[in-house]
Structures are given as C-alpha cells and as structure tokens.
C-alpha cells in the first residue's frame, strides 16, 4: 500500500519530508544530472545575498572525524541573478523551492525579502546563522534581541511563509527560537553548522584559509537531535530538523525528536544518491512498522 509521505510546513506542501539543505545543493542544476529533482520534497537553495559575493579564499574544505568543515563564505551570484536566471528554472522542477537569504544588515534582509515577495517562490528561509562571514547574519542568530528585530523587520516585507534557520553556536537555542516565533516567523529550521577549526601540524597553519569554518556531517547529528527536541518544546511553530542526517534511520530519529520535515546536506557529498536512498529507506521502515502516514511519528519521543 502506498504510504503518505506528504508533509506541510507553515502551510507549504512538501511531497515528502526531505529537503536538500542550503549550501549543499547549489541551485539544483548539478544534481539534476544524477536524478530528477522532483524526487525531493524540497530544495533550499544556496544562501543568497543582495549583491554577488566571491566568498572566502581557498582552501574552504577540511575533513574531520565523521564530518567536514567548510568556509565557503556565501559565494553566490546575488538575489537579482537568482530571481532572473535560477528561480524560473527551479520552479518547473515539481518540487518545493525555498530561497535561503543572508545579509549583514536588517535593511538588506528586508530588501531581499521584498524582492522575493514578488516572485512565485514557495518559501523564504532566513539565514541568521552563517558562521563564515560577518555579512552572513550570525550576529543576528546569536542574540535573541537581534534575531527578534531582524525577523520582525523581514516579516513586514513579505507575505511568503517565513522560516528562520537557527545557529547552534548559542547558549540556548530555545530562547532564540522563541524570539523569532514572537517576531512572526512561520517555522524554524535547525541547525546550521557548528563553528570549528583544524590545524595542519606540519605547517602549524589552519587548514582553512578563513582559519575557522562550519562543522557538518554525522559528527553533529546528536547535537541537532538534542536541539530539535529542545526547540520543539519551546515553540508552537513547525520545526524543520537537520544536521548530520545520513540514513533513513537518522531522518526518522529527527522526526521522532520533533521535526516535521528534515534537511540533508553533507550526506549528499558522500553519496549523491543519498536523498533517494533515505526516502526509500523511510518507506521500507514505515512498511515494517505499519505506519501509513509519516506525520504520525513527528515528535513522538517519550522522554524519561
């Protein structure tokens, strides 16, 4: 029997709960060479800023135990290019499209959001958590007051469903989640990468030219589960969970912790087909456990 995989986040329909995480999937063109993008529940596009950005200098990638660091630094062609050249193509792909936007000031966030409001994009994800650049919004994501202010400002400029991507580099992620909820966010997604560092002991130089970068991959999965579990209890708006998911079991665990949909990223680098493998793994698990609708499992963890 066919299972119900469809989920809804803040009124936005996703044909299944799997969303390609921002920054790991570009604007979708590269992975379409492997499979149809219509297999995915949604795509959160590369973090896009007001004007084009070259990003940080290379090396931008360092491997870590069960994960990786990146310091790409929001390299992107800018919002106008995105709206004109990428979005029309993406909107034909029969999947839900989320614009991930980043900026260094409230004004710029508002300006980008206003531009997107005039498009047919399904959802906006406000990146207030890029750890790699000052203009990436991390300053907004690590203070409840700043997060509240920027979300309130953007809220006034867009009627699009607004999801806010939270930083794990904070003392209490639940506090930030509450702040963005009260500012009018329709959903939260978490977690962005954790700030990390690797040093080459031969040269005694950091591997990344930016010195530090964002940690992702299976290493951060338990942190993401814990934070989703905490945030789910703190807010009423939907929670989209992500961070180190690399198997169907991980995705199910994330949903049981409280995520109504999940994002995968680094796993796609390890295996470009991991989105498809994870989805078929979830369906097989639902079969084995006699679950008809994936929404049944969301937040079903019973705490001790």
């Amino acid at each position, binding site marked *: 029997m066919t299972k119900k995989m469809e989920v809804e986040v803040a009124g936005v329909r996703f044909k299944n709960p799997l969303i390609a995480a921002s*920054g790991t999937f*570009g604007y979708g063109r590269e992975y379409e060479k492997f499979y149809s993008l219509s297999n995915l529940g949604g795509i959160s596009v590369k973090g896009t800023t007001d004007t084009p950005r070259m990003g940080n200098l290379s*090396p931008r990638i360092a491997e870590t135990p069960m994960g*990786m660091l990146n310091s790409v630094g929001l390299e992107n062609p800018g919002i106008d290019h995105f709206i004109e050249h990428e979005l029309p193509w993406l909107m034909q792909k029969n999947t839900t499209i989320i614009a991930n936007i980043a900026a260094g000031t409230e004004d710029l966030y508002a300006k980008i959001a206003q531009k997107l409001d005039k498009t047919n994009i399904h959802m906006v994800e406000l990146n207030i958590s890029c750890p790699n650049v000052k203009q990436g919004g991390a300053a907004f994501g690590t203070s409840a007051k700043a997060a509240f202010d920027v979300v309130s400002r953007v809220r006034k400029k867009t009627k699009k469903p607004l999801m806010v991507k939270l930083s794990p580099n904070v003392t209490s992620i639940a506090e930030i989640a509450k702040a963005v909820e009260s500012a009018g966010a329709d959903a939260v997604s978490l977690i962005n990468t954790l700030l990390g560092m690797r040093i080459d002991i031969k040269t005694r130089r950091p591997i990344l030219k930016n010195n530090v970068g964002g940690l992702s991959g299976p290493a951060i999965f338990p942190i993401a589960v814990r934070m989703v579990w905490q945030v789910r209890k703190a807010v009423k708006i939907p929670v989209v969970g992500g961070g180190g998911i690399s198997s169907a079991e991980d995705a199910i665990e994330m949903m049981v912790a409280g995520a109504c949909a999940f994002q995968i990223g680094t796993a796609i680098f*390890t*295996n470009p087909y991991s989105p498809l493998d994870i989805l078929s793994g979830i369906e097989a698990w639902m079969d084995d456990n006699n679950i008809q609708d994936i929404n049944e499992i969301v937040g079903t963890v019973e705490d001790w």
Partner: protein
Amino acid sequence: MFKTTARIIKKDLLQRGIYSFVLECDLIAKAAKPGQFVNIFIEGFTLRRPISICEIFENSFRIVFSVVGKGTSKMAKWDVGKNVDVVGPLGNGFKKIDSNEKLLIVGGGIGTPPLLELAKRARSARVIIGFKTKDLVILEQDFLKHGETIVCTDDGTYSQKGLVTKFLLESIKSDDFTRIAACGPKPMLKEISKIAKNFKIFCEISMEERMACGVGACLGCQCIIYKEGKKQSAHVCKDGPVFKAQEVFL
C-alpha cells in the same frame, strides 16, 4: 557523470607510498577524457577522494595516487577484486588535440599521472617530467612508450638535474612547439604559465584544490580566474581541473 562500481583489476606499487590501480568500469572508461577525474568513496570517511584519471582503456581506467593521509592510506590497502564506489568522470579535461599541434607536456611529482592519457593521444609531443628525488620518479616507462620523454630530478639523483622549467625553456627555444599542458605544484604551474605567456604559446594547466561534492554544488574548491578583464570565481571540480593558464590567478 555516473555513480557506479569499479572493480580493481590491477594494483602496482610505483614507489614507496605511490600506488597505481586499474579499475574495470565500462561506463567511466567510455565517457572519460584526458584530464578528467573521479571521486572515490572510502568506507568511514565523509568526503570522497578526488583522483585524476591517468589512463583510459577500452573498459577500464587507471589512477595513480600518493598516500598523504588517512583516506589514501586506507585506499592503499585495497586489493585486486575490491569493488570501489566511484563518481565520474568529472570536470573538464584538456582541449582535444589537433593533428598539426606539437605539444610540450610538463608534469611535476604526483601531478604527472593526469598527463599520461594526453601524451598517449598526442601525435607529436615532448614530455618533461620532474620529481624531487630518485625515490619519487614514476611513470617514466609509460611516457617513454608514447614518445620522447625527459626525466629530471631537483637534486640530480636520477636522470637529468634541474627543474622542469629549465628543460621547458630549452625545448621552446630549440623547437616550434605550439601548445603546453602542465600539472604539478602551484609554484611550478605559475612559472610555466609565465613562460607560456612570454613565448605566446597556448597553455593549459590542471589544478588541484580541497573538494567536497566534486560536481560544482558546494562551491568548496574555488579558484580565481580572469575573464574579460574581470576577476571571477571558478571551481576546480566543475570549471576545471584543466584551465587555460592565462585565465587562472595562481
């Protein structure tokens, strides 16, 4: 590009810490061009290892790699019969060779392997390959099979003493070469690029950078290029690894 399984059918130790595998894989062998690379999965590691294609056969291809860390040391333990998870062929290879071109093919150290297939296909070429020292010399016989080959070492412990650029300059001055293809450490590429510019010879270089996705999505392997007089961002995995020397900011 494909994600597929390739079986190791031949394994050789070329020098201490430098291995050669021939991998049976019809899909990649049929699609691959000289200068492209494959991205190899290693159990227990998050990132694949991007490794250039050294030779292309009817239904197999060859890679040569040096053990530099935990991932490549695990690969070095793989044996004939092992099925390897490979994504490829990836990136842009060298420009197709015109029949009237006279090539200078210049390789340095572990940058030498990606040039072998190009050398095989060139009707008229001189190969210059350089290594730090005798214990690091690889592929000499392979290149010799396909044409004139100069081997040099920085310390003179094997064959001729000197840097590849010395022999490159001599070659350019003594003969009318029309094209250069190079791969090796950045300082070497920088120097070769300068020489090519001075003598107005078309030159391509194959670049290396730390990568994650290997297909152009994550933007991890940026290099800076000049196009139409403007600084632009390019990515080694998708726009390269082979670039026109005059376009890359080294």
